[in-house]
């Protein structure tokens, strides 16, 4: 009983001391800087990102990002898996652009293997599905970014369309998010029966949905005031800090890997690179909005011109045999057993492959020492490079604008920490 009394007394004493400390006002005319800890659990950081802000009133003097809370060691794990097994890990790097990660890994390994020819149908399927994942990513980005700034209703509209995309992904691959659809040597499955109707119905309606989002946001003066002229940084700084993707296209750089270094038959598709010159939050929104329209165009072309043929390469030592063949043919059964138990060997060497992910340049640097497991898989993820420019966007600006600037970078913390 007595101890408790002493305890409460001491708390009261501390509180009293604190109250007096607060009540002592600093002399008139002097200010002091304040350290504000934003995150790791903050709704507008979209993941576990911690930023230490040094504030002078409402102005940010210094911003120091602290990352690593979602570090999972995917690169290390890839070294313990066979080449095929590592495909499933690439999904987990970025939950919004998992197909881009599948694609870049498959392309890098195929480059290492060398003598493997991917059928045209598989290439077109890869393009179509990657564009669906770009739409998925941009829709989530637009919804949450608008929500951060206070325009709540856009979120519901975006997620309505995202749900349709996830259903399409599930229809093609059996999974809504962790699809592992793009495999070494092609894609995982033959497209399901009737996919043309489902994709056609979605893609014919989608452009009008983008008009809806645009109408909702661009006729909203609060949205315009909170995004125009906000979050700017000189282009030289952005390039120097390693920023890629929509962020530098919004600053006027004409660089889109789909156009500049075409892969997986992107050169057969007709679409336009989206650039702006204002280099602010609003320009980034316009670039991504334009990219959604272009992705819809690409998907429509893929739907109308989908080539006939095989969905996987004719390489029995690398690609898993079809189920039916495995049950009826001895060779197929043997290859299946070999691939599943031991994996296939990849010639020694190294390959660097970059693709344009929704967030920017995603590139895998894959090293093989001639065995059935990758020796090293380095993932150059766009969010890691982009996030480095965060201090350049925030310092010297108002605290309230930091939310808009953060949102416009469109990072995924799993993609940063890997």
């Amino acid at each position, binding site marked *: 009983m007595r101890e408790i009394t002493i305890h409460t007394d001491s708390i009261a004493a501390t509180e009293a001391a604190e109250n007096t400390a607060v009540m002592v006002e600093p002399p008139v005319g002097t200010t002091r800087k304040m350290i504000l800890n934003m995150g790791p659990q903050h709704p507008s950081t979209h993941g576990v990102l911690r930023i230490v802000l040094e504030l002078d009133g409402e102005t940010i003097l210094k911003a120091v990002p602290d990352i690593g809370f979602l*570090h999972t060691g995917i690169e290390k794990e890839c070294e313990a898996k066979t080449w095929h097994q590592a495909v499933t890990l690439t999904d987990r790097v970025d939950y919004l652009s998992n197909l881009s990660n599948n694609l870049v890994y498959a392309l890098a390994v195929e480059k290492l293997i060398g003598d493997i020819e991917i059928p045209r149908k598989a290439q077109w399927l890869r393009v179509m599905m990657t564009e669906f994942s770009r739409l998925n990513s941009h829709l989530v980005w637009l919804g949450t970014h608008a929500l951060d700034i206070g325009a709540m209703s856009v979120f519901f509209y975006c997620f309505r369309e995202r749900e349709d995309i996830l259903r399409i992904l599930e229809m093609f691959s059996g999974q809504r998010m962790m699809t592992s659809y793009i495999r070494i040597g092609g894609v995982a499955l033959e497209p399901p029966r009737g996919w043309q109707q489902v994709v056609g119905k979605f893609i014919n309606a989608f452009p009008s949905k983008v008009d809806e989002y645009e109408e909702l946001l661009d006729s909203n003066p609060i949205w315009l005031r909170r995004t125009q002229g906000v979050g700017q940084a000189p282009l030289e700084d952005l390039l120097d800090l*390693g920023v890629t993707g929509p962020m530098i296209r919004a600053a006027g750089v004409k660089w889109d890997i789909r156009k500049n270094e075409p892969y997986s038959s992107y050169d057969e598709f007709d679409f336009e690179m989206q650039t702006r010159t204002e280099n602010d939050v609003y320009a980034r929104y316009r670039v991504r909005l334009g990219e959604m329209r272009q992705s819809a165009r690409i998907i429509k072309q893929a739907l109308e011109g989908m080539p006939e043929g095989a969905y996987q390469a004719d390489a029995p030592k690398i690609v898993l045999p079809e189920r039916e063949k495995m049950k009826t043919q001895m060779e197929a059964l043997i290859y299946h057993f070999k691939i599943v138990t031991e994996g296939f060997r990849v010639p020694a060497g*190294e390959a660097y492959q970059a693709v344009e992910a929704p967030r920017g340049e995603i590139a895998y640097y894959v090293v093989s020492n001639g065995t059935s497991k990758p020796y090293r898989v*380095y993932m*150059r993820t766009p969010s890691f490079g982009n996030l480095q420019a965060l201090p350049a966007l925030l310092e010297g600006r108002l605290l309230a604008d930091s939310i808009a600037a953060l949102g416009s970078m469109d990072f995924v913390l799993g993609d940063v*920490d890997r």
Partner: protein
Amino acid sequence: MLPDSLQQHAVAAALESRLPGVITGGHADRNEPTLFIAPAQIVEVCRILKNEFSFVRLSAITAVDWQPADPRFEVVYLLHSLERNERLRLKCWLSESACEIDSVTGIWRGADWYEREVFDLFGVRFRNHPGLHRILMPTDWEGHPLRKDYPVHGYKYSYQNE
């Protein structure tokens, strides 16, 4: 000394004539030009490549551990020129006893986090780096996880005894 496969490569040839002996080897494996650079001169080479050959972008810096080979570590610089749409890979070999190299943060500010990542995961130190401390692992972590002698399940905690 420039290898035969890179004699026709304009940037490699120009770099060789500019700084003779700085290129210790290289290859064009799978049509990706790679130059081996003497570690002591990496900053000078990067400065020339950025200022005179328009490699304005540093895509990434990473490393590969070739244990038990000596030199053990391979630090890889992935450069990109927007103007010519060209990529170039530089490599520096470092032995385990002296795994230290000069930082290129003075040339590309973006090298900061990549060098911290290589330090964190491989234990390669970068001289003159503005703040070389761990970036992905906790600050009090022991060991460097991407080294080949580091077990996949880690040293510290295991489910074996539970």
